[in-house]
C-alpha cells in the first residue's frame, strides 16, 4: 500500500495543524494564560495522523494525557478544542474536561485521559460493542511506553485477543515517562515483541515516518474491520518538548544532543523534504498551507479567548444522566 501524493499532502497539513496548535498552547501555558499542565504532542504528530487517517467519526479513539494531536487528527475543530483547554463554555465539554479530559464524541474522539493506561480497557469495551453490533467500527487505544508497564496493558491485550475484537493498541514509544527513561524501568523494551504473549500481531515502526505509520495502521485497521482481531502497533518516536510546559525540555534526564538529533528527524520536516525532493513546485503550496494553518490557529485562539466561562450555576447539571 503506497500513499498518493495528495494523501501525503493531506497528512502533512494535519501534522502541521497539530504542531502549530500545540505551539500556541505551549505559549499560553508558559505565559499563564492557560492554567494547568498541558502535555504537548510536538514531535509525535505522525502517529496520530497516520493512524487516524483510517478512521472516521463512527470509530472510537481513546486518547491519553497527551491527546490534542489525536483530537485534531480525528477532525475536532481547533476552536472548540482550544476553548475546552481554557475551560470555556464553548469547549467540547463545556469547560469541564480541559486538556486531560476533553472528548468530542461526535468526532469519534472518546476522550483524553488523566489516568495512564486506563483507556486500554475502555477501547476493549468499544471493540466489544462493535463486534456485538456488527457495525464495522474499530476502537483505538493510544498509549505511551510508560503505560505499557501497567497491568491494564496485560489484561486488555489478552481480552481483546481472546475475544478477537476490532481494537488497535497504538504504543507511542517516545522513550520516556515524564523524566524516567523507558529503558531504566523496563525489562523488555521491545514493546512490539510483547504481542507474542497475547498471540497477537505486534509491529514496530518508525513513528516519525507518517507513511510507515499510515501503512501499518491501514493493515491493522483492515484486519480489525474484517473480524481478524486486534494488533499491537509500536510507533517509535520522541517528544521534542518537555513532558509538560512547566518542566525542562532537556537537562536532568536527557541531553540537548539527544533532543536535537530527534528534532532533525521531525516528522513534518522529513515529509516536506521528501515531497519537495519529488516535486520542487510544491514550495508555493507549502507556503499557502502554512498560512492557512496559521489562520485557523489564530481564529481558534480568538474564539477561545473571547468565549465566556461556564456560569457557576451550571456546576451541578449532568451530575447524573
Amino acid at each position, binding site marked *: 500500500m503506497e500513499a498518493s501524493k495528495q494523501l501525503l499532502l493531506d497528512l502533512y497539513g494535519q501534522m502541521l495543524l497539530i504542531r502549530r496548535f500545540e505551539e500556541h498552547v505551549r505559549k499560553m501555558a508558559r505565559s499563564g494564560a492557560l492554567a494547568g499542565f498541558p502535555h504537548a504532542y510536538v514531535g509525535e504528530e505522525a502517529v496520530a495522523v497516520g493512524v487516524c487517517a483510517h478512521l472516521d467519526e463512527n470509530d*472510537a479513539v*481513546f486518547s491519553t494525557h497527551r491527546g490534542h494531536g489525536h483530537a485534531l487528527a480525528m477532525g475536532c475543530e481547533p476552536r472548540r478544542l482550544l476553548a475546552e483547554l481554557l475551560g470555556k463554555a464553548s469547549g*467540547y*465539554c*463545556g*469547560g*469541564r*474536561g480541559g486538556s486531560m*479530559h476533553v*472528548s*468530542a*464524541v*461526535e468526532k469519534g474522539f*472518546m*476522550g483524553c*485521559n*488523566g*489516568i495512564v493506561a*486506563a483507556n*486500554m*480497557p*475502555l*477501547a*476493549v*469495551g*468499544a*471493540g*466489544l*460493542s*462493535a*463486534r*456485538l*453490533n456488527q457495525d464495522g467500527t474499530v*476502537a483505538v487505544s493510544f498509549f505511551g511506553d510508560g503505560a505499557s508497564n501497567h*497491568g*491494564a496493558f*496485560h*489484561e*486488555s491485550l*489478552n*481480552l481483546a485477543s*481472546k*475475544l478477537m475484537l476490532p481494537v488497535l493498541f497504538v504504543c507511542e514509544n517516545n522513550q520516556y515517562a515524564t523524566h524516567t527513561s523507558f529503558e531504566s524501568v523496563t525489562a523488555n523494551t521491545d514493546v512490539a515483541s510483547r504481542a507474542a504473549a497475547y498471540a497477537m500481531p505486534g509491529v514496530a515502526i518508525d513513528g516519525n515516518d507518517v507513511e510507515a505509520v499510515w501503512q501499518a495502521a491501514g493493515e491493522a485497521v483492515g484486519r480489525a474491520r474484517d473480524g481478524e482481531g486486534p494488533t499491537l502497533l509500536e510507533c517509535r518516536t520522541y517528544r521534542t518538548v518537555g513532558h509538560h510546559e512547566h518542566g525542562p525540555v532537556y537537562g536532568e534526564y536527557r541531553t540537548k544532543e539527544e533532543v536535537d538529533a530527534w528534532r532533525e528527524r521531525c516528522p513534518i520536516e522529513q515529509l516536506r523534504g521528501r515531497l519537495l525532493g519529488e516535486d520542487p513546485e510544491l514550495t508555493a503550496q507549502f507556503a499557502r498551507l502554512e498560512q492557512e494553518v496559521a489562520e485557523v490557529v489564530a481564529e481558534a485562539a480568538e474564539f477561545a479567548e473571547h468565549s465566556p466561562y461556564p456560569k457557576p450555576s451550571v456546576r451541578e*447539571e*449532568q*451530575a*447524573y*444522566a
Partner: protein
Amino acid sequence: MPSQTSQQELTTKGYTEAMRDALGEEMRRDPSVVVFGEGIGPRGGNWGETTGLYDEFGPERVIDTPISELGFTGMGIGAAMRGLRPVVNLMFVDFFGEAMSQIMNQAAKWHYVSGGQVSVPVVFWAVMGSGNYAGAHHSGCLYPLFMHIAGLKVVTPATPADGKGLLKSAIRDDNPVVFLAHRMLWDFQGPVPDGELLTPLGEARVVRSGTDVTVVAIAQMVHEAARAAKALAEEGISVELIDPRTLVPLDVETILASVHKTGRLVIVDEAYARCSAAAEISALVAQEGFKWLRAPIRRLETLPIPHPVAAPLEEAMLPNAAKVVQAVHDVMQAG
C-alpha cells in the same frame, strides 16, 4: 412493597432467583444488555445468579472472562460509553479493589466531565457481607467507598422483590450503579410480584411503621432489625423500621419524616463504622433533623477489624438483633 406492584400477583421466590429473573427479563427486552464476569457462562455464576442465561443468549452476550477485574470492568465501561448496557459481575465486592481505578476514575466521571456527551449505563454487581466465616478477603460490605465517589449509584436489596425490582431499574439507569447483594440472603425466600417490576432507585421502604424510635437498617441488617423490632413491640416499644434500599440516591425525606415523628434514631449498618452509610445518615439527620431529636443518634456497626474466620470472633464483631434491642433501649432511656 415496591410501589408499582399493588395490582400484581405474588409468587414466592428466592433472592438469587429473583435477580436472575430480572437479568433474564432485561436481556430479553433489550439486546444491548450483556453480562460478563468470571464463571458466569456455562457455570451460571458463583451462586447460580446467571444460570440458564448462557444457554439462552449465547457467548456473545454472556461472556466468561479471565481473572482480569480491572480489564473487564473497564471493558464494561467502554462498552457502556458505546451504547451497550453491561452488567459486570465482580463476584465479591472485595474484588472491586482490583478494578477501583476504572470504577472511580472512569465510570463515575465521564458523563459529567464530557458535559453530558456520553453516559455510562453499567451495573457493577457483586455479593457482599459477612456472617459466613469466610475471612478477611470475602466478607466486606464496602458500599461506603462507592457512596463517597461522586457519580455512582449504590443499591443494596434486602428482599427477593427488591433484588428483582431494583436490578431491573439499575440496568435501565443511565448511570453506573454498584449493586450489592448480601451473601446471607442467598436462599432467602419472599414474595415477588409477577411480571414487570421496576422499583425506583431512591425510594426507601418502610418495613414497619412505628412511633417511638426510627431504626434505619441496610441489607441483611434489615432482617436483624426486624427481629429486634418484633421483640421490642412485645415490650411495648414501637419501632419504625426503614430500609433505604438505595444508598445513592438516598431517600432522606423518608428518614427525616420518621425522625420527625419518633425523635430517636438508631442506624444498623454492617459496614465498618468510620465514614459509613450510618455516619452519612447520622450527619444528614444531625444537620436537617436536629430540632426533632430527643436522644443521641446511635450507630451500630461492625467493629473496625479485618474479618476473622473464627466463629466467635466474627459473631462478636457484627451487629445483630440483640444488639439492636439494646441500642433501642439506650436511646429510649436517653430522652
